Structures are given as structure tokens and as C-alpha cells.
């Protein structure tokens, strides 16, 4: 109804075993809610207006805002679902919602050209059904239309958020929470606005005031549009990164898939070091772009098989500051540009371009330094310095080498956390 975690779980079979208990809980809740609401109140006859609401639920669900980079879908069908639940019966409302989610999920797969992920879709439908069922049943306890509306909407939004969080955790997907994406003030304000006007709409519609209810939809629809606009901004950010890496590929071909994996590990290291979700994601972006300065480096020198002369080495070293210069023009990359500028600095002060010491080096740069070196040793992009590591090492030797250079070339704490991340990655 509000958000559904739809990104694919990392490991298929075991992840779906994980959700077994979740499915049971949802099913029990759904059935309990349905039975309770049927006992509490008979189904009222449907009017033409109610059919309109049902169609509205489907339309709003199909028009959900999709945030692919975050793996969530954001629909604003709550006011319509609430109206159906309160005017007719929660059972009718959850049927409309189930149909709408199913249809939207099917259409989404069609648009991607892929097959419908049955289990995931079923989970989303079941989740939506149980949310409406419990919220509906609870709201039937109150005689006041306003109190019922408030109860329904607050419960529905709360359970929905909880459910999405649980699904995310269970599926171990890479989906983000809206709070994460939008930041606290925006997320809270948006949620309050959505809730307030959903209550208003449901209340007006329960009383039969169609147009007053429709006016409540104004802010809600605009809110959804604003979220959509935010999504476009983020998509553009990703595209700029893709374009820059395309340019680098032309000059200096490398395996992008390897870099993606390494970048994800950098994000995890950042998270474990307490950088917070937003900053850790930026570290990931920085890891993907850290060698972008090589666009401005002579590729013949970069690929030279033998030892580099003083002059050639000095030229290659410029890729760090070039990387910073390329990115500092973009507002969304300004901070990252500073980290990339310093990603070859060393705690002992022997790095470049400025020879800064430990505390003057951003922790994000220290993370990239470790990740970059590891990547080079294990056989990824040939790093500008690691010419000695021509033969790809195995993971343990690379980790040992990182530890050997702790304190001098690399930050000790970062190396320690990095080892943990690698070991967890290998174990899974």
C-alpha cells in the first residue's frame, strides 16, 4: 500500500526459507482480522462511488512511484483503501488492494521483460492484505467516523512500514528505507502530510462528501510527484557516474563488475566504522569513481609493462588530484571529490599529492586506499603503484599484505574492519 520492498534477495533459496515464519504470521493476522471484522460488522451494500474507489485503488497502485536504486515502490492508495474499508467493509478493501498489488506487480515484471517473481509478489500481496485486515478490524471498534479514520490510517501506515522493514531484513535485500533516502526531516514531514490528508479524505468520503475528500488528494498526489522528482535526481546522479566510468573504460579498459563488488565492500566497511547509511553509500560511489582521474593520464604510461621513470611516475600520481578536479564541479559529487583527491595519502605522511598524515586524511579516503590496494593485489585493475603485484594473489595473502602495511600505508582500524568484511563475504 505504501511501500513494498521488491528488490531481489541476494541468495534465493535460503532467503525464502527465512520468510517462512513471516508468511505464517501474516496469514494468521490476515485471517484473524477478516474473521473479526466480519463478526463485528456486516458488509454494507456497494454503491457506484465504492466501485469508483476500488478502481481508484488499482489506478493509484499501478501509478506507484518507483525508486529502483532503492528497491522500493511507493504508492499513495491509502485514502482510497481506507474509504472502502470504512464505507463498505475491510474485506472488500483488502480484496481491492490484493488485486491492485497483484496487477501492479505483474505489470512491473512485464515492463522489465522478466517473469513474475511469484513468491515475492505473494509476500507483498499477503503483507498488504494483513495490514488492511488488522487496521480495518481495529477501526470497526469505534463509532466515530473521525476516530475510525485516524485508527485505520495510523495503523495501516505503521504496520506497512514495519512490514517493509521486516521483509527487507528477512530477504537481506539491498532495499533502502525511505528514511534513509530522504533524511529525517523530509521523511517525517512527508509521512505526517500523507497521514493527515489520508485521514481527512477517508473521513469526508465516509460521510459521503465526495468533493471535499477529493480536495484532500491534492497534497497527497503532489507529495508522490515530489518523491518521483527526487527519484529522477538520484537516477541522474547514477547516470553521471555511469557516463564517467564509460569514459574511463574507453581510455583504460577494466572489469567493471569487479569494481562494483569492491565498492560494495567499501560501503560495508564504512557502515561498520559507523559512518551512517548515507555516508557509506557515498563511500561506495567514491570507490567506483576513485580512479576517474586516469582519464587525464597517458594510457601508454599507465600500461607500460616495465618500471616507470621518475617523470612518468610523477605524471601517473596526478590521477588523484585530477579525479578531484573532474568531480568538484558537480554539487552531488563535491564531497566525494575531496575523498578521491586524498585516496593515495598515507598515514605515515609519505603519500600524495600532499603528504598528509593520518588525522588529516578523511576516513573515507583511508577506506578507498585499502580497497584499491586489495583490488589491485587480487587481480583487478592494475593500480598505478602496485606493479610488483602482477601475479594475482589469493585473498589471504592480500589481507596479510594489508596488515603488514598497517599504520604506515594503511589505517590499522580500516584494515581490521576490512578483513572482517571479507571474511563474512567469503563465508556466505
Amino acid at each position, binding site marked *: 500500500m505504501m511501500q513494498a520492498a521488491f528488490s531481489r534477495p541476494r541468495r534465493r533459496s535460503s532467503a525464502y526459507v527465512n520468510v517462512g515464519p513471516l508468511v505464517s504470521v501474516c496469514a494468521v493476522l490476515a485471517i484473524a482480522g477478516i474473521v473479526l471484522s466480519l463478526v463485528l460488522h456486516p458488509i454494507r451494500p456497494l454503491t457506484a462511488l465504492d466501485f469508483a474507489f476500488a478502481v481508484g485503488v488499482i489506478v493509484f497502485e499501478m501509478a506507484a512511484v518507483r525508486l529502483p536504486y532503492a528497491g522500493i515502490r511507493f504508492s499513495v492508495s491509502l485514502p482510497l483503501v481506507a474509504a472502502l474499508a470504512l464505507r463498505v467493509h475491510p474485506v472488500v478493501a483488502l480484496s481491492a488492494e490484493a488485486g491492485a498489488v497483484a496487477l501492479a506487480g505483474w505489470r512491473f515484471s512485464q515492463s522489465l521483460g522478466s517473469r513474475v517473481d511469484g513468491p515475492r509478489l505473494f509476500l507483498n500481496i499477503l503483507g498488504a492484505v494483513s495490514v488492511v485486515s488488522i487496521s480495518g478490524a481495529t477501526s470497526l471498534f469505534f463509532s466515530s467516523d473521525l476516530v475510525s479514520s485516524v485508527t485505520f490510517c495510523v495503523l495501516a501506515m505503521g504496520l506497512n512500514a514495519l512490514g517493509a522493514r521486516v521483509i527487507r531484513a528477512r530477504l537481506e535485500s539491498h532495499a533502502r528505507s525511505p528514511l534513509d533516502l530522504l533524511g529525517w526531516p523530509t521523511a517525517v514531514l512527508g509521512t505526517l502530510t500523507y497521514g493527515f490528508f489520508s485521514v481527512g479524505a477517508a473521513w469526508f468520503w465516509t460521510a459521503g462528501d465526495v468533493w471535499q475528500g477529493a480536495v484532500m488528494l491534492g497534497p497527497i498526489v*503532489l507529495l508522490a510527484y515530489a518523491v518521483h522528482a527526487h527519484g529522477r535526481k538520484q537516477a541522474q546522479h547514477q547516470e553521471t557516474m555511469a557516463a564517467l566510468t564509460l*569514459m574511463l573504460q574507453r581510455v583504460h579498459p577494466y572489469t567493471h563488475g569487479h569494481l562494483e563488488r569492491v565498492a560494495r565492500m567499501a560501503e560495508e566497511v564504512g557502515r561498520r566504522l559507523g559512518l551512517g547509511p548515507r555516508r557509506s553509500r557515498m563511500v561506495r560511489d567514491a570507490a567506483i569513481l576513485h580512479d576517474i582521474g586516469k*582519464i587525464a593520464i597517458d594510457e601508454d604510461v599507465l600500461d607500460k609493462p616495465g618500471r616507470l621513470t621518475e617523470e612518468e611516475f610523477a605524471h601517473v600520481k596526478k590521477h588523484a588530484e585530477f579525479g578531484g578536479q573532474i568531480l568538484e564541479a558537480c554539487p552531488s559529487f563535491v564531497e566525494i571529490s575531496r575523498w578521491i583527491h586524498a585516496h593515495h595519502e598515507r598515514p605515515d605522511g609519505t603519500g600524495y599529492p600532499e603528504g598528509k598524515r593520518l588525522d588529516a586524511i578523511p576516513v573515507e579516503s583511508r577506506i578507498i586506499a585499502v580497497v584499491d590496494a586489495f583490488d589491485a593485489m587480487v587481480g583487478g585493475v592494475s593500480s598505478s603503484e602496485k606493479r610488483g603485484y602482477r601475479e594475482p594473489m589469493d585473498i589471504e595473502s592480500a589481507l596479510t599484505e594489508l596488515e603488514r602495511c598497517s599504520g604506515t600505508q594503511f589505517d590499522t582500524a580500516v584494515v581490521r574492519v576490512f578483513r572482517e568484511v571479507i571474511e563474512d563475504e567469503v563465508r556466505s
Partner: protein
Amino acid sequence: MIESVFLASAAAATVVLAILAFVVLPRLRDRQTLSSLRAFSNAIELRFPSYRGRSDEVCDLAVKLGRSRGMRGSELRDLEMAARLRDLGLVGIPYRTLNHRDPTDWTEEERGQHARHPEIGAEMLEQIESLARLSTVVLHHHVRFDRAIHAPPASYILAVVTGYVRERGLSGEAGAQAHLREESGAAYSPELVGQLLHLVERNDSRTHA
């Protein structure tokens, strides 16, 4: 009572959110788009220092020329974006070719590589969803007026402006204007040459005033 609270706040919220969604956010996004394109021109100018500053000049002039031809809004914005991205394909050229070698000494192969840069740029842009619509303009940004190709108007503008800026770097203001007059009707459309000359002469007199 409560009804009026809901209705009044809905009206207010609608106005505020409408301004946010249709005025503030798009403007912010446009600014972000244009400044992020600087990353690409920065990359090219760092790789080939002889191109430094050229992107700003071409962009500036192209937008002025476009505006004087009545381009507005998203069309003008697309022209500006294409101006920033036009030399993206230069990354396909080896570093040494443009930095260590004199263009007059280039081999057939090197000449061919340089000639292909609009194609390479267009190819790269097609892979990026939000920039793909600019690929045709970039593909033809060196279009000659006397070739019967159907290039977008923006391409002709870019062709004449880049030609002018390049010549100005080689043989100064006078040489560049002479080049424009010479190639009017051949490489460049006479109409565009006239308008561009008018623009730069106006700039010239302004700086000399």
C-alpha cells in the same frame, strides 16, 4: 470546524507542494544537470590541456546564438548540454596524439580517429538514458552546411561556434571572423554566420567602449 481545518490546510499544502514540485525542484535539478556536465568537459580539458577553457567559450556563445535565434526553455537547455558534451568522444583519441604531436604531422589513422570523435561521443551518450536525446546533436556537431544531411538546428549552431572559437585560438579575432566570412555558404549557413558575427562584433564594441 474540523472540516474547515482539513480543507484550509489541504488548500495551503497543495499550493506549497505545487510550487515545490513544479518550480523549485525542477530548477534545482536543471542546475544540478548543467553543473554535473562540467565533470565531462573537465575530464576532456584535463586530458587535453590545449582544449582548456574552450568548453566554456563554446557553451557561452552557443547559448547566446541560440537565444538570438529565438530558442527558449528546454530547447535552449538541450543546446547548452550538447555544447558541454560535444567533445566527449575525444577520449577515444590517444593521449599522445593530441598532446605530443602536431596535428599537421598526423598519420591517416590519427586523422581518422580525430574525425570519428563525434560518432564516438554520440555512441557513448546513447548508453545514458537521460542524455540519449542529445546524441544526434553531438553526432552532427561538425556538420557542414553544404552537405545535404538532416542535422538538428542545434548541430549547425555548434558547428559554426566551434569553428569560430577554434580559429580564434589559431589566428586571433580577425582571422576567426575572416574564416567565418570565407566559409559562409560552404561549411556554415550564411544566416548563422551573419548572426554570429553580429554577436561577436557587439561583444567586441562593448569591451572596447
